[in-house]
């Protein structure tokens, strides 16, 4: 694959000044805001965008020692491809941290989410979780 404009989105921790943007897009994408404390939010963004641009995709993780739990991810409606891109980028980014494993708990009814996780490199564990080694 050649270097293309499509590849130019980058992943980053959501900067402090963009909390309001995060809340806004979660509402627009019909996702409930999460109240869970100690979440670390990541976003896939176009660095050429304005400061208040909506992210291309969002993820929330909960770091817990060597393990990071993927709590949530969301994309604009109709942009499933972004979810895979987001998760692959997230895995790469977390590899630069001290975490060793990223785990996710796909909902029992959400086959599509499991598929997305698998496309992004997650593998099922015996306990029903999905995980990827970092």
């Amino acid at each position, binding site marked *: 694959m050649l270097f293309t404009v499509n*590849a130019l989105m*980058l992943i980053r921790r959501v900067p402090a000044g963009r909390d309001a943007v995060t809340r806004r897009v979660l509402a627009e994408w019909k996702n409930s805001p999460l109240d869970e404390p100690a979440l670390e939010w990541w976003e896939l963004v176009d660095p050429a965008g304005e400061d208040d641009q909506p992210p291309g995709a969002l993820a929330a993780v909960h770091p817990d020692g060597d393990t990071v739990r993927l709590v949530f991810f969301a994309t604009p409606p109709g942009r499933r491809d972004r979810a895979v*891109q987001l998760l692959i980028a997230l895995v790469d980014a977390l*590899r630069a941290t001290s975490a060793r494993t990223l785990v996710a708990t796909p909902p029992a009814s959400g086959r599509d989410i499991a598929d997305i996780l698998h496309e992004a490199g997650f593998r099922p564990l015996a306990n029903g979780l999905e995980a990827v080694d*970092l």
Partner: protein
Amino acid sequence: MEFGILGPLEVVTGDGAPVDLGTPKQRAVLAMLAAQPGRTVSVQRLVEELWADEPPERATASLQAYVSRLRRALEPGRTSRDRSAVLVSRAPGYFLSVPNEAVDAARFAAAVAAARSDGPSEATVRSLTAALQLWRGDPLPELGDSPLARAERSRLQELRFSAIEERSAALLALDRPAEVVFASESVLAEAPYRERVWGQLMLGLHRTGRRAEALATYGRARTRLLEELGIEPGPALQDLVEALHRGPSPAEPRVSAISEMSDEGSREDAGGGVSHEAGLVGRERELATVERLLGEPARGALLLVSGSPGIGKSALLDHLAERAAGQGAAVGAGTGVDGVPPPVFLPWAQILRGLAGNDRQGLTEAFAPHGNLPAVLDPTLAERLPLPAPERLADAELARSRLYRGLVDGLRRLAERRRVVIVVDDAHWLDAPSTVLLTMIAEPGSRALVAVGYREAELAAGAPFAKTLGELVAQPHTVQMPLEGLNRTEVAALARRIAEDSVPDETVDVLVDRTGGNPFFLVELLQVLAAEHALDPEAARDRVPVRVQEVVRRRLARLPEQANAVLAVASVLGRDFDVTALREMTGIDELDLYDTLDTALVSGILTEGDPGRLRFSHDLVRETAYLDQGPLRRARLHARAAKALAGPTEQAAHLRLALPVVSPLDVARAMAAAAGEAYDRTAHDTARALLHEAVDTLGRAPVTEERDVLELDLRVRLAYLHQTIDGYLEPPVAEQFARMAPLLLRTRPTVAILPALWGYASFHTASGNHDRAVEVARSAGGAEPWARIVADVHEGHAAWTALDLPGARRLFERAVEALPAEDLPLFPIVHWDPVAGIRAPLALVCAMLGDHDAARAHLRAIRPRPEPFQRMYVSHYAAIVAVERADPAEAAALSRQSLALAERGGNPEYRAFSQIHLGWAEAAAGAPDGVARIEAGLAALGDNAWRRPRLFMLHADALLATGAAARAASAASQVLERGLTGEGRYMLPDLHRIRGDVREAERLAREIGYVAALRRVTEG
């Protein structure tokens, strides 16, 4: 910090605390680096080591993550601004930057070497005993089973056995045989074929009185060697056993090591004046190596030529092939092809076809035992080689084995008959079967010269050639030849050749900078320039050849997506960029950015610059990443860059390029700020160009009051600038004020237009058009207090010009009284305080009226400013006031001050004024040189001097002061004859005084109330 690889990897800090090295793969990375401290291990080799045959899709990114974690573990105190000093990125990979002695294996090797040179002694035994205690287990268990890992382990084990042997030798020499028996038995359990150890064991047993066991030991050794290897013990061991049979105490046998092949002379002819008429420029050292290899027909060799795309690998291999053919060698050349999957055996088909073309008869004879195997790879050879088709084999595995073995044997047979040179280019794209064949043919023992070119940075982790490269590199007959960019002299030579013309030095500098000396980039760029007949540096800066872009894109595509995304942003910041600015633009913290860009560093796309800065290896790389983003995206990124950067010049440079997505008004404001910065650096031409560009940029915005106000601001800046550079009333100044007039009249009066209004009024006052100055000031300013000040000041100037000194004083004083409590804003460009523009002329009026105390008070009331222009202006007025006071010493001091400031600021008019005042002060103090200084100042001003008759009066007065009364009178008469108008008439009393007409002088002074002049007449 100490690294232990003689056993499971361990790292301890200076205070002995162990470092947590993380996962097995992380440990494997560090183990690879620690095995060769100071040497770069390529990304490709690390990937191969970590994942063997199955590298994951994002292997490079994962490797980078491991490196990142290791860096955090090894340097926990490192901040985001610090580059790693321990695990260092250096293309094409990483190296461990620690002293050799920080790694236990290196300390161990040093101890063994010292023992060998020192000979047997107690100290040697102690040293080797301590060294052997460094071993905690099998070395490098973290590494897999790659050939390189195996080789490294073998090397270390061999060293360990040598240490034990040296220690045993020392113990025997020190008559401590019992210890030798114990040590030798344990070594032989691991290494049963080491005959020296068998011998030492036999001696140890013998000297401890166990002669029978010593002889039995020989039997054990012989049995083992015979049964397992089919060989008899060597002569040294046989001599020893005979001695044991014969006598009581034989000396330790000498079991000589096999001498390594000497490379004596291998470098002797390097750089020895090899000509390179075949089209290559530079590369003397590499060409000398090629000549040396070609000059050794009896020996086979493997030449590995590596480097980035376009660096000249193919040209060098072509040169080698041509030279070889010229010397009568049979040459076959093939090239790896970029395909998914790559075509099987295509390069070898090309090679065999080439060899058949060179020596059909020889090839036929060489393959006679095997049949026409070459035709299996290249069907065209079925006709050309008169050989029977090989027998069909039903077993595919057998058939393949026969094919490989047959081809290798045939080519080796050919190489026995004549010189054979095989060239494989672009080996990074080789298919797996071709790679296997290459590896077999390149093994030591063949007399063929095999030359291979490959791009290390583009070697995909899973590429067949990547998997075998470690093995090839480790072979004793391998010569590695990494190619770097051409140096400046070579670039200049290549440029001349391509352009068929002389190329300016500046263009060569640009070429070096943009291409990094990469010959492909150079040739492509030069061809574009030559075709356009544009060899100037500007053209060289602008062009990006399409073929270069393609090569660069391919390199970028191999990086992780995150790295590409960040590089795209960085490309907007320029070839050299600040990581802090990149952090601001991307929202990613600096340490993560360094991690992300590490892959670009190790692949040679970036290099490290000053602390906190990174640099694209070539500007062409940056430009490709930049241009591939499309104009609107680039513009948006430039807008973000402007926000991220602090300096006005950088902000303006980015906002200019962001114009499609930002307001022209913002761009113009940024350019005005940049012009101010340029002015402060005395880069007047740059400042002027920026302001003109800003005015042009405003033309893109619709007409609004905001635009008018900004245009007034820009134009008055330009006017001040031209006044500084060209002169107060010069045409470029007049042009700006002429364009400002309609804007001043239609713009709502606010303090924002004060500088423009003041400048306009001052210009017209200086031009003698006082009415226009006052009219515009009063109509534009309305009832605003500051506008009334402008009007009063310029009306005061008008009164002064009309010889109404008391009236002028009154108006100036009214302006002073109307000044607001707060300071007025400084004027742009010159940073001029308008209060100085009121009080300085008021001080002069007071001095002329003889009120020197008031004059001093007004000068003191001007707030001191650091800006040179205002300091120059005020000291200039203060000097005139001192002249009026007839105080040469004070006038000299102040003139020197204003002269220095005028010279530093590049103000030619004020420089001349200051010279004249200084000359007057010197002459008044009795120094005749003062007159010459005045005359030089007048000459510098030319006709403009006549706008200030005071200057000619000072000249005549200086002549008088130096005793040249006749010349003084003549000079004064010339001025009077020329006629004086306006403010020039203030000079009449003094000119008459100088001419000796005292009565007329006194009359005139009294008439106009010029008290200071009257005093000069009456007191002089």
